[in-house]
């Protein structure tokens, strides 16, 4: 385990020493503050549009950070030849994959923490309330969703040759699932066989990332998600993370590193 944490630590250091996170965070803050300064019928209590814009920016930024940070991990190690001295240590390939995943996931978690603290402060400045449990549920579900994205991107980085192609494909897949994943079964009904079966299979096979998008519940102050379903969703995410990581270990085991 110490090996895994050691590798994870390096990834986290990389996140806070690169500019990506700071640029996205500052852009988010600037856009939100600009939106907050707009006069809407002289009513200072209007807040939901601001929450929506902020959460949208948080989601976009977090997915960008997750995909770009993860996509370059293994290829950068390979390109800089740091993979060789790393694997020459008593570190298995599976431990390396686990360490990279944990590092990227924790790094995303830290970034999310900063974003959600800002979001909470922004919302509280108008709503004058702190529904902490609701925010906690939203942030945790968001973080676990990013875990699936990180695991998927890590697998992609071992399958696809270039980080850019991996990033592009991951963005398209993640975006596609978020927008239409919930409705694929309805789309399947309108199709003929064998396309219908294929689409149905995709519907049941893909990780339903849209389950973790509870922005509407936060924006419109809906009650808490029942804790049982909340826990089941986290377990669902862990399951998919395990599947993608197992796939990554399997692919990496057979890959030449020289």
């Amino acid at each position: 385990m110490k090996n895994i944490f050691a590798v994870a630590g390096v990834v986290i250091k990389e996140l806070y020493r690169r500019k990506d996170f700071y640029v996205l965070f500052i852009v988010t803050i600037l856009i939100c503050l600009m939106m907050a300064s707009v006069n809407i019928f002289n009513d200072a209590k209007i807040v939901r549009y601001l929450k929506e814009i902020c959460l949208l920016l948080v989601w976009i930024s977090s997915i960008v950070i997750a995909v770009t940070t993860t996509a370059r991990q293994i290829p950068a190690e390979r390109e800089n030849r740091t993979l060789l001295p790393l694997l020459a240590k008593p570190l298995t390939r599976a431990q390396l994959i686990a360490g990279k995943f944990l590092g990227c996931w924790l790094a995303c978690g830290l970034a999310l923490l900063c974003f959600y603290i800002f979001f909470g402060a922004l919302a509280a400045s108008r709503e004058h309330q702190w529904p902490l449990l609701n925010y906690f549920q939203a942030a945790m579900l968001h973080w676990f969703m990013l875990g699936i994205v990180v695991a998927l991107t890590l697998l992609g980085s071992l399958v696809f040759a270039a980080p850019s192609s991996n990033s592009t494909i991951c963005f398209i897949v993640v975006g596609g699932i978020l927008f239409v994943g919930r409705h694929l079964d309805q789309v399947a009904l309108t199709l003929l066989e064998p396309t219908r079966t294929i689409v149905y299979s995709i519907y049941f096979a893909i990780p339903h990332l849209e389950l973790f998008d509870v922005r509407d519940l936060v924006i419109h102050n809906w009650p808490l998600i029942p804790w049982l379903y909340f826990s089941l969703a986290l377990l669902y995410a862990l399951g998919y993370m395990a599947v993608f990581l197992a796939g990554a270990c399997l692919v990496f085991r057979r890959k030449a590193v020289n």
Partner: protein
Amino acid sequence: MTAILKTEKLRVEYRSREMRQKTKVALCGLDLEVHPGEVFGFLGPNGAGKTTTMNVLLGFVPPTSGNASLFGIDVRQPIARQRIGYLPELTYYYKFLTAEELLRFYAKIFGLARAEADRRIDELLKLVELEHARKRPIKSYSKGMQQRVGLAQSLINNPDLLVLDEPTSGLDPLGRMKVREIIQRLKKEGKTVFFSSHELGEVETVCDRVAIIHQGELKAIGSVNEITGRHASLEKAFLEIIGFTTP
């Protein structure tokens, strides 16, 4: 004497991209032994199979057939790498880390305790003369400094066997001298050094034994004097062994 590094009929084949050839043989039945405490030079022209041999020994590439072991343990076991240090050729270490952080990272992987790791880091940075730059990010280092930090990381666990791939590549004469001094110091401490190099003059100076490999086959193995034989220099002997005749 039990070999610290041993290969038996080691064969490595790669799938060839050429239409007419199905596989490319990188190593063809390599038998090699390196004894404890010796400095062993592994020589050969470009594409001879030196790096492939090292890749097999370090577990990067599985052999097609044959065996390879370190300290009597099969190279495919991660534990075999617990007592070795490795310096690859032309490595650009993590740019955003400092030298100290890089060494601490590798020390954690070896499971060194904090106090022991701190002591080793101080010692190694002094050895490779990077104390003044320990807090600077590696991206600000010159090539020579990067090579030295690479050497330091290969020694972090105080290894019994050091595997160096072209350790003096890209270094100036002063840098090469420093590397030779370090190798000689390690030899005095009883460490075993296995390295590949194109600098035959250095090999003559530091090595106890050498092996010459060409086109995946071991062509010669023995002490420097044995290999040099009747030739004026190791270089001339090398050229004859690999079949290059001077006009």
